[in-house]
């Protein structure tokens, strides 16, 4: 009931305060930012350059994306070179001042998040690695509040006519997120200390948040596809040293399944990002469900 009231309040105030201006056009690189922005600017038209099934490292700077970028009032991406293979081309080809770097209306989540795995020395022999740090920041749960604050501020300055609604939505998002954080951290208690083999450090922020540890990677080096030799070396891992094999929905499952056959450890496929219509907290709920279903089964009674 309280929820309904606040929705009504927001709607009424938005109607009262907003000029009959056109809704904002927002371009995002990954679906998680679409979900985040939709919570802050529900009236905006938001276009995501990638889907949950695509690897955001390997996207084509295709004509349809240039056309979308041309019309954007604002853009948001993960940054930290995740999109370095295509985003700069879109920015240049779209000729849209609003989406150029260092503009208020061009937002990079990794510039807000406390980055993990930053490197002073980067060499391509280390694989497709970035000095900025691990760019898969959609699971930096604790930093989402800081991101939300920046998003609200930017929206307010880009579209002052609707500033009040962005302010209210931001407050609502952060309040809800804080509640969820408490809930998630309680639920995730059984996951603390769990050790896994994963793929590409995709879940670096998730594991860091939940107190899990990735002890080996199915990729020999970030961005280098699993090789037979590397997978063979993983079979020499002490089977007692890890609890599960985790990979992401857009990644090739062959390597994970192969290691499963060798070690009999459970395989968990986690989503990379939100699926259509899903909110960011629903994604987190789903990931916790998926992890807990496999990793927190009731301990068998010893006897």
């Amino acid at each position, binding site marked *: 009931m309280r929820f309904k009231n606040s929705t009504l309040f927001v709607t009424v105030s938005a109607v009262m305060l907003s000029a009959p201006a056109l809704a904002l056009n927002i371009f995002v690189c990954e679906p998680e930012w679409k979900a985040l922005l939709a919570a802050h600017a529900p009236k905006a038209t938001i276009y995501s350059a*990638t*889907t949950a*099934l*695509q*690897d955001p*490292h*390997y*996207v*084509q*700077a*295709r*004509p*349809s994306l*240039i*056309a*979308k970028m*041309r*019309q954007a009032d604002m853009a948001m991406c993960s940054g930290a*070179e995740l999109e*370095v*293979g*295509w*985003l*700069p*081309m879109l920015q*240049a*080809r*779209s*000729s*849209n*001042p609003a989406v*150029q*770097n*260092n503009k208020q209306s061009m937002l990079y989540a990794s*510039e807000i998040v*406390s*980055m*993990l795995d*930053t*490197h*002073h020395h*980067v060499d*391509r022999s280390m*694989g*497709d690695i*970035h*000095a*900025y*740090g691990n760019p898969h920041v959609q699971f930096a749960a604790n930093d989402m509040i800081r991101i939300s604050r920046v998003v609200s501020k930017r929206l307010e300055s880009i579209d002052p006519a609707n500033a009040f609604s962005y302010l209210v939505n931001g407050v609502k998002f952060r309040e809800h997120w804080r509640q969820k954080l408490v809930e998630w951290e309680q639920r995730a208690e059984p996951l603390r200390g769990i050790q896994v083999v994963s793929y590409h450090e995709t879940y670096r922020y998730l594991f860091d948040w939940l107190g899990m540890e990735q002890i080996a990677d199915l990729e020999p080096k970030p*961005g*280098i*596809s699993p090789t037979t030799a590397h997978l063979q070396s993983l079979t020499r891992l002490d089977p007692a040293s890890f609890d599960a094999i985790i990979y992401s929905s*857009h990644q*090739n499952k062959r390597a994970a399944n192969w290691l499963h056959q060798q070690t009999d450890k459970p395989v968990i496929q986690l989503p990379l990002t939100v699926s259509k219509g899903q909110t960011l907290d629903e994604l987190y709920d789903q990931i916790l469900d998926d992890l807990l279903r496999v990793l927190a089964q009731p301990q068998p009674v010893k006897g």
Partner: protein
Amino acid sequence: MKKKLVSLAISSILVSPAFANTLSNPQIGVVLDGYYQNGERNNSERSEGFGLGHTEISMSANIDDKFHGVLTTVLETHGDETELLLEEAFIQTLTMPYGFNIRGGRFLSDFGYMNNQHMHSDSFVERPVAYRTFLGSHYYDDGLRANLVLPTDMYVKLGVEALSGSKMSAVDDATAVGVYTTTLKIGDDFSESSSWQFGLSYLRNENGKVNNFEEHDHSTDGHDEHDHSHASAVTGSNLYGADFVWKWAPNGNYKYSNFTLSAEYMLLDDIVDSKFKGEKNAPDTLAAYYVSGVYRFTPSWSAGLRYSDAESYEGHVHHGSTQPHLTSLNDSEIDAMVAWDSSHFGTVRAQYTRVENQDKATDNVFTLQYVMTFGAHGAHAF
């Protein structure tokens, strides 16, 4: 205590903008290109044996909040000689309103589909014979460009260029601005898995019409002189182009597998001065095209097939005569290539080319090539 200090140090590294050292100005990138081949293709920059191809050193940076700058130098070896070419040296606007952008300096022309792309992003060892004959492999020049991207859901880009045209001049007293181009590009997605782009181009060459043929002595071998010419082999007043590219990847995820089909057609007209009309073999129009398909079947392996054909001609006058002697020429090539990518930055490629040239002589050229990049690696166009 010690632990606390360490974690403090680490967290300060994390919080400190580590961005500073990698966002440094300018971005520098190097492309290394080496090969061995057992023959030669017509109008090619690559000779027989071991050689270095398109070795590139590139620097780029945002100059300020309004301009972006790029400098690309190319080193090429031909026998004992090493050539240093300036392929790109341009500035481009970043913040013009209404989807406009202006580029000035030396740059790759927007004519056609492949011309404005860097050679190291190609899927084959060399540009198709159509490009080598009509555009001197890739046409770059000094001048000015204005582009306009329309605010439509379908991608529509209009562009005009004014260029010196010195590489495409067929006359001695060339005008200062020799070449004007105008291009239209449209493109969109067929579905989540497949995208397309179609382009029309027109190039007006004020100095393209041949009004004089040089004397040619049959006894000397004039081959070496023009072996690695960067100018187009044939020119005319008008060059028309149409191009199409279609890319497909399952669910739009290009990492594991994808397919690219591209094709271009070019038509050259108004080639020789009217005083040569009626001469035997005087070309009226010349056409060139290619069709290419490349399939990536794993992240590290791809294979491709390409067919290209170009009409051209050769003309000279004999000593003491004013009558030119003209010969119609035709080159066609079938290429088959297999490439292995050690990563996103290193490629080793094997290519077989069946060359069928003017007098229907056939030749088989086999090339083994590597193309590897280090430093900053720019994003690639569609």
